[in-house]
């Protein structure tokens, strides 16, 4: 890999995807980010580690950047003891919250950043408490605390007022706080405050054996359990120099595509409901329930939790099971085509969908919108098509994109992705290789491994660092980090009652973001 004329020494990680690792200094850190941005690349994730007791002997901040060639994982060791690194917020806006989180967890600051508010820390951790530092066990019991005010940005003007929403929401939804500044019904500004679900997962990983970590990874965001478990296992397999047997890889893809369809079915129903079209909810929820019940019958779990394991899968599929999956694909395809026609023809529904919550392709690119929502705004990235791992390299995945970037576009992309995933599942089942389900993993040989999987929401990234039989650091990145800030822009100028609809069309993860 080459980033412009930067003389970086890249080490290719032994992975099915092109991922390179390099160590940089502060100047190269910024120059590399600028080079990637200028070349149309993206920021995938940014995180920090305490490696004072490792070879580096210091804190390290890391960034994962996607280019047309693959993923560049850059480590910046702060070996001079100055706990500052160049701010990337000016190059990639989505870096801002990631950097705020790095500060809360590790106490190292982006130099020159202007937004230094707490993010994952809600202002009540003791002054010297940085959970990812070695001196913290993570098992501390912190005292009860007073509620700390969060300095939301105020909108001034005649008739402007605020609506605070959450963290406990009106529906069956994850917790988070939304602060709307409105005039009449019109949203002038939305500011999110997240971090309510922070459960200390990064720290908890340090107490896990590498071979067991897939269970925790599978519970970072329950609706993407297959994607997370796969990404974790990919990272661990890279460290052990092993690959899952072909049959296991194909079954993983079946589970991943079924997860994508399950979520799209649920969200398409909920989107109908949020536009007062309860018929849609009832119809799609029936399809989703059938889908999950077949998961339970064939794979022993409705969401296939813990079915992807290091080295392979913990499920198999016999001829009868394969036939049941194919039959269900046919039923769902027929039903979803009917429902799509009904959605398309319904004037009231389309009136709510079209031009609502618009993110133009230009804004989407600028802010780094990613995954399914990105594809609905013309940001054409899909790991299954761009860097296909086995078995996707044999399936010719057709990426679905749209350019309108509104709720309607995200609905269309979801419909089309269902049809494409149904096609992929059929191909997978017809070509399912025979053989072993799980490869034995040797103890990890390397230190660093990465996993990168196109979940239903977008790319799920896992950076894993092990030392012998323990995990030193496991960073799980949810694509919601990129997309939450864009949601704030998507609602500007729309009316408050359209917010649930816009929000659902993205359906971002709180748990995956807060970790």
């Amino acid at each position, binding site marked *: 890999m080459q980033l412009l004329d930067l003389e970086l020494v890249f080490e290719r990680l032994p992975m099915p995807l092109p991922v390179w690792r390099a160590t940089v200094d502060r100047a190269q850190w910024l120059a590399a980010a600028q080079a990637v941005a200028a070349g149309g690349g993206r920021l995938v994730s940014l995180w920090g580690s305490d490696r004072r007791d490792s070879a580096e002997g210091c804190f390290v901040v890391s960034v994962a950047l996607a280019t047309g060639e693959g993923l560049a994982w850059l480590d910046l060791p702060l070996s001079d003891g100055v706990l500052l690194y160049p701010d990337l917020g000016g190059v990639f806006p989505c870096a801002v919250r990631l950097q705020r989180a790095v500060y809360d967890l590790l106490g190292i600051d982006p130099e020159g950043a202007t937004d230094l508010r707490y993010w994952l820390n809600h202002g009540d951790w003791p002054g010297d408490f940085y959970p990812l530092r070695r001196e*913290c066990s993570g098992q501390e019991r912190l005292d009860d605390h007073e509620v700390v005010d969060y300095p939301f940005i105020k909108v001034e003007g005649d008739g402007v007022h605020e609506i605070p929403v959450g963290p406990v929401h009106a*529906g069956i939804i994850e917790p988070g706080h939304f602060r709307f500044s409105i005039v009449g019904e019109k949203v002038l500004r939305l500011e999110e405050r997240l971090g309510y*679900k922070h*459960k200390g997962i990064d720290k908890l990983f340090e107490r896990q054996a590498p071979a067991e970590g897939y269970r925790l990874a599978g*519970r970072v*965001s329950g609706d993407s359990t297959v994607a997370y478990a796969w990404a974790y296992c990919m990272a661990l397999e890279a460290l052990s120099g092993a690959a899952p047997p072909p049959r296991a890889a194909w079954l993983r893809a079946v589970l991943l595509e079924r997860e994508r369809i399950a979520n799209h079915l649920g969200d398409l129903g909920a989107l109908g409901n949020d536009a007062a079209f309860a018929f849609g909810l009832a119809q799609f929820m029936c399809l989703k329930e059938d889908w999950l019940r077949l998961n339970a019958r064939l794979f022993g779990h*409705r969401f296939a939790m813990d079915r992807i394991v290091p080295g392979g899968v913990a499920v198999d599929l016999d001829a009868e099971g394969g036939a049941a999956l194919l039959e269900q694909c046919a039923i769902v395809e027929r039903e979803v085509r009917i429902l799509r026609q009904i959605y398309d023809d319904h004037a009231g529904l389309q009136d709510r969908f079209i031009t609502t919550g618009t993110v133009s392709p230009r804004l989407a690119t600028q802010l780094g919108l990613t995954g399914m929502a990105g594809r609905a705004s013309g940001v054409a990235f899909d790991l299954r098509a761009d860097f296909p791992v086995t078995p996707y390299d044999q399936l010719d995945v057709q990426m679905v994109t749209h350019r309108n970037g509104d709720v309607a576009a995200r609905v269309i992309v979801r419909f089309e992705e269902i049809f494409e995933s149904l096609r992929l599942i059929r191909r997978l089942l017809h070509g399912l290789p025979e053989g072993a389900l799980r490869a034995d993993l040797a103890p990890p040989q390397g230190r660093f491994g990465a996993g990168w999987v196109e979940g239903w929401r977008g790319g799920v990234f896992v950076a894993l660092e092990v030392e012998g039989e323990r995990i030193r650091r496991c960073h799980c990145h949810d694509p919601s980090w990129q997309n939450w800030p864009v949601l704030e822009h998507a609602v500007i100028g729309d009316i408050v009652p359209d917010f649930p609809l816009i929000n659902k069309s993205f359906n971002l993860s709180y*748990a995956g973001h807060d970790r």
Partner: protein
Amino acid sequence: MWKILTQIAKKGIRSEPAPTLGPEEGIEAGRIQQELLAILGRALTIREVDAGSCNGCELEIHAVNNPYYNLEGYGIKFVASPRHADLLLVTGPVSRHMAFALKRTYEATPEPKLVVAIGDCGCDGGLFGESYASLGGVHNVIPVDYTVRGCPPTPLDILRGILAAVRVRHESGQ
């Protein structure tokens, strides 16, 4: 409109035990409905609080509302405010940052109130346990009447849990 009506008619009433439903599950669902009405004699309203889950439990709580389980058909419904609720359905583990909001929600719920903790994490913290950021099971923060295990529990387990909580309260004569 014609297409919508055709689709509704074709789909039929799924709340009846459908072929994909095992006969045992169908009987179970019917029994729950009868017991609930016998004990409560009226509607039950639920406020769901996600106090830090991975969102897996929420997916299954959503499913309880689908036509198969038809929760509203039993006279049970989810409401938007704790002030309208008889029962809090809480998923966990309770994150440190949600503890305050959970307590406030509990206080805002009128007496007599029931609390059902959902999922392994709601019961005892599950895989997340207790740490600087997780307070573990729901009972560490507010009183719990009944717990439903599972990761996540199935919709039918959640239904059973709701009924069992009502029954426990009924039998204790409160």
